[in-house]
């Protein structure tokens, strides 16, 4: 068999594996495969991929590329920074005992705390703000405390009285009506229902804090005139 012929047979294997060859060509390729080990091995490798193709949806392949929103990375960093700061506040020392990696994590926590403490001006009072959710259904209670940070706003939210397992999606809204996600949590009966969340929106820009709980949405105004509520717990010792 000449090399050129062999190459021609090989090029037919794609269409053969996909079952797209006319009957006469198909029979000819099958006959060649009988006597050609190399082509049989090649066919085997192509058939695995060919078998997966029916799973794909051609419209999705050609549709516009799906890309995450530009600010999603910043929101994730903000949330991690907030969690990091919280770990420091509650003096969870787990990461501090992990050797070199722990030391780096500790430095990161310390850096976040340093940023967080700066706006406190002496640390006697915190600019955290407690908001009131009005017109809630009977039995439902929602409280939120907002705290400004360099990365945005930290939100501590307490929910009770909704169905266990309810997905709660928290957001802030600015004066222009733009919504900034602050993440989500699930309400569980009997579990600690204080959720720690964060949003990239500065507290000074926030007009409304809200939560989508299941198919209901509850909101509360953010009072820009008030900056209060005591109990700064930034003891970075």
């Amino acid at each position: 068999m000449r090399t050129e012929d062999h190459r021609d047979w090989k090029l037919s294997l794609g269409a053969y594996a996909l079952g797209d060859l006319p009957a006469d060509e198909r029979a000819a390729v099958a006959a060649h495969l009988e006597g050609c080990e190399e082509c049989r091995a090649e066919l085997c490798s192509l058939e695995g991929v060919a078998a997966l193709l029916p799973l794909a949806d051609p419209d999705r392949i050609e549709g516009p590329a799906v890309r995450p929103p530009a600010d999603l990375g910043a929101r994730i960093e903000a949330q991690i920074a907030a969690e990091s700061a919280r770990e420091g506040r509650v003096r969870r020392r787990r990461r501090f005992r992990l050797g070199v990696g722990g030391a780096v994590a500790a430095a990161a926590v310390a850096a976040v705390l340093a940023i967080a403490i700066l706006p406190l001006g002496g640390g006697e009072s915190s600019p955290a703000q407690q908001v009131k959710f009005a017109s809630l259904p009977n039995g439902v209670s929602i409280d939120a405390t907002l705290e400004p940070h360099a990365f945005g706003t930290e939100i501590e939210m307490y929910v009770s009285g909704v169905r266990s397992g309810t997905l709660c999606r928290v957001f802030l809204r600015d004066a222009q009506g733009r919504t900034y996600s602050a993440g989500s949590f699930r309400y569980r009966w009997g579990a600690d229902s204080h959720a720690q969340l964060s949003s990239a929106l500065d507290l000074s820009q926030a007009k409304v804090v809200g939560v989508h709980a299941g198919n209901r949405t509850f909101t509360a105004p953010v009072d820009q005139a008030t900056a209060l509520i005591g109990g700064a717990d930034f003891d970075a010792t």
Partner: protein
Amino acid sequence: MGALTRERDVREAYAAHSGELYGFAVRSLGDAGLAEEAVQETFLRAWKAGDRFDPEIGSLRTWLFAILRNVVIDLGRARAARPRVAEGGVEPSVEPLEQALLAWQVEEAMRRIGEDHRRVLLETHFRARPYSEVAEELGVPEGTIKSRVYYGLRALRVALEEMGYED
């Protein structure tokens, strides 16, 4: 030592993998808002469990996809538990999700191969058009269509293998 304990590592992991993770989240949840939450939750969980990631055992990409898979299952359950659909709501089983992941990988691999190869596979296989018709439309010999199908399948296999596919 874990490789995701530092916030800078999370940023790098996000830059490298968020596009794919988000693409799969949209594909399997069918909702852009939920997909954002899923990706956010995935990186948060990855950061929290960063100590447990060992690059000796598997790639960061595989690990992140494993976390996302669990997040998608959790979000699917939470959605099923919402009051409107609570009655008779069935938890999503694992099988369709694995199927969705595989389908998404094939679609993503198709997007990654060359335009010439993708076009020919789409027209001849997915749209079942005769090779002669596609050859005429593209102004190339029919033999070229056949060879593009062959090299297209091979390229697809390489793209899938880069995403962790094995026979």
